[in-house]
């Protein structure tokens, strides 16, 4: 597996406390990774560290093997970044923001950037402030893609967009990635649309990596078990319980499938990505990392 981002013991402390702590992760190259977690989980901090906007307090982060702070020029040339809230110079026209991209990026692809915006029907002579939120998001994406990055970092790219604009943005993204094969890391606290777009998942919670793995594997290796009401400790012995919901008559447990067979009187249901994510977010002490997932794989 080629690694786009590698973090080892990564930590970032602000005046208010640790935003990210002892964080170890690998983002595979050529994939679309979802970075998921509640507000304040450290998603934005992680992305800013990756693009070199912040310097790590402890540990290390590398992008294609280079440190974003000691070799900024090597990293900046290869990374496209759409920051949270998609800031743009709002009094610039679309043309002017592309001019900025052309001025500041050695590998800038003007033809592709203009073509992309024209295909979306965004007028190039319009001021950015006069564009809709969805159009501004598309301009931000075009600016980040115009530098022909190998890695695209998107911090909550569809937040505050209406459902149609969200879908248009994400489908534009999927098309580009399919065509260019670049690596994407997409942070979000909305899980629903990620399953369609992403193939790799990282859950950050409380500044730590809680879950990391292929979405397909994660979904396949988690099941919802419905059993007559029982003590979760009984289950914990042979399954890894992520979350338990008890009702009067029965217990519903979202588990990571273990080595032991499920008891015959239990119902087994498949789960969606959203079920898995919500279960882990609801139980910060549970976690699954690739090493563990691999154990499951091999057996």
């Amino acid at each position, binding site marked *: 597996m080629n690694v786009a981002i590698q973090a080892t013991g990564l930590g970032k402390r602000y005046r208010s406390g640790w935003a990210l702590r002892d964080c170890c992760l690998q983002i595979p190259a050529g994939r679309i990774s979802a970075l998921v977690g509640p507000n304040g989980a450290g998603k934005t901090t992680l992305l800013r560290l990756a693009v070199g906007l912040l310097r790590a307090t402890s540990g290390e982060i590398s992008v294609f093997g280079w440190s974003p*702070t000691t070799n900024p*020029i090597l990293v900046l040339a290869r990374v496209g970044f759409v920051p949270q809230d998609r*800031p*743009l110079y709002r009094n610039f026209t679309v043309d002017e923001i592309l001019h900025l991209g052309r001025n*500041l990026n050695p590998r800038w692809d003007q033809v592709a950037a203009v073509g992309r915006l024209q295909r979306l029907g965004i007028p190039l002579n319009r001021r950015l402030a006069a564009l809709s939120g969805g159009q501004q998001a598309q301009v931000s994406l075009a600016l980040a893609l115009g530098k022909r990055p190998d890695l695209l970092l998107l911090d909550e790219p569809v937040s505050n967009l209406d459902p149609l604009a969200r879908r248009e943005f994400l489908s534009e993204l999927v098309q580009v990635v399919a065509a260019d094969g670049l690596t994407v890391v997409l942070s979000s606290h909305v899980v629903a649309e990620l399953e369609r777009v992403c193939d790799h998942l990282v859950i950050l919670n409380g500044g730590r990596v809680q879950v990391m793995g292929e979405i397909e594997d994660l979904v396949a290796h988690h099941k919802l078990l419905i059993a007559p009401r029982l003590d979760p400790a009984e289950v914990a012995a042979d399954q890894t319980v992520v979350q338990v919901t008890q009702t009067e008559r029965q217990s519903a447990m979202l588990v990571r499938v273990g080595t032991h067979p499920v008891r015959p009187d239990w119902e087994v249901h498949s789960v969606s990505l959203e079920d898995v994510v919500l279960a882990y977010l609801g139980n910060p002490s549970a976690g699954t990392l690739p090493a563990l997932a691999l154990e499951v794989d091999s057996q």
Partner: protein
Amino acid sequence: MTWLTWRQHRLEALGAALLVFPTLVAIAGFFIVAQPLLRQVNAACPGDSCGAALQSFSDRFGTLRTALEAILIGLPVLPGLFVGAPLLAREFEQGTDQLVWSQGITRRRWLFVKLGLLIAVTVVIASLLAIAGRVWFETNPSGNSSQWAEFDVQGPAFAAYVFFSLALGVAAGALIRRTVPAMAATLVGFVGARLAILFLARPNFLPQQQWDVSTILVGQADAWTIGDQRHFDVTGHPLSDTQWQAAVNTCSQIQGDWGSCLRDHGAVLLQAYQPGDRFWLFQSFEAAIFIVLGIAMIWLTAWLVGRRS
């Protein structure tokens, strides 16, 4: 980067042009229009009609001169307020620092190219005004005022104020990260630094000299008199008011040399001053101080921008 700098600061450039161009034109016009009256003054002075000639000159041009002086005193703070303070603060406020610092050039290069261009342009404009300020001073009728009164609106000191103002504004924006508070801090910091240097440092760039007012009534040409005249005894110790008054009362009744009479009665009246030939030396001291302060502000900004926290 050049294009981006121009695109982001073209409004300020327009504002600068609208302020500076009329000022330069006014000074040039003043210089040309005032020549006939100036020749009359120079012909009359020194002489009996000197006072009347000076009066007619200041009747005609007094208001213009006051206005120009006020403009030239006030101008240097403007680049700090409207170019310097928003330079980083506005990027932080709008989140566009993350946008521009994640493009393909380092933030340090972004800062230095941008600052370099803005400083170059403002210093060129400031130098034009500094030269115009000198021309304007030289258009003053001699004897009407000392060059020291217009010290702050001419020469290298004026250009250095402009450079310092810009650098101070940028540093305030980098530190405070919000535009309006950074502008306020720039205003306070600039006025504070100017007043501190003007009142505390400049009179003492070199040791002050004293002249005996009681013997030489007409002071040295182009000297900068500092503070009030003060009375001493002949050994240089301060003299009490009653002793001084006694000496004055005695000597006022005496015909002849008032100064030597006072001296005979143990009293001397002294005026502290800086000689006129120190003017350009003091200009270069003052300029050096503000250039060093400005460089310190840029160094602080570079450190704040580079530390990535």
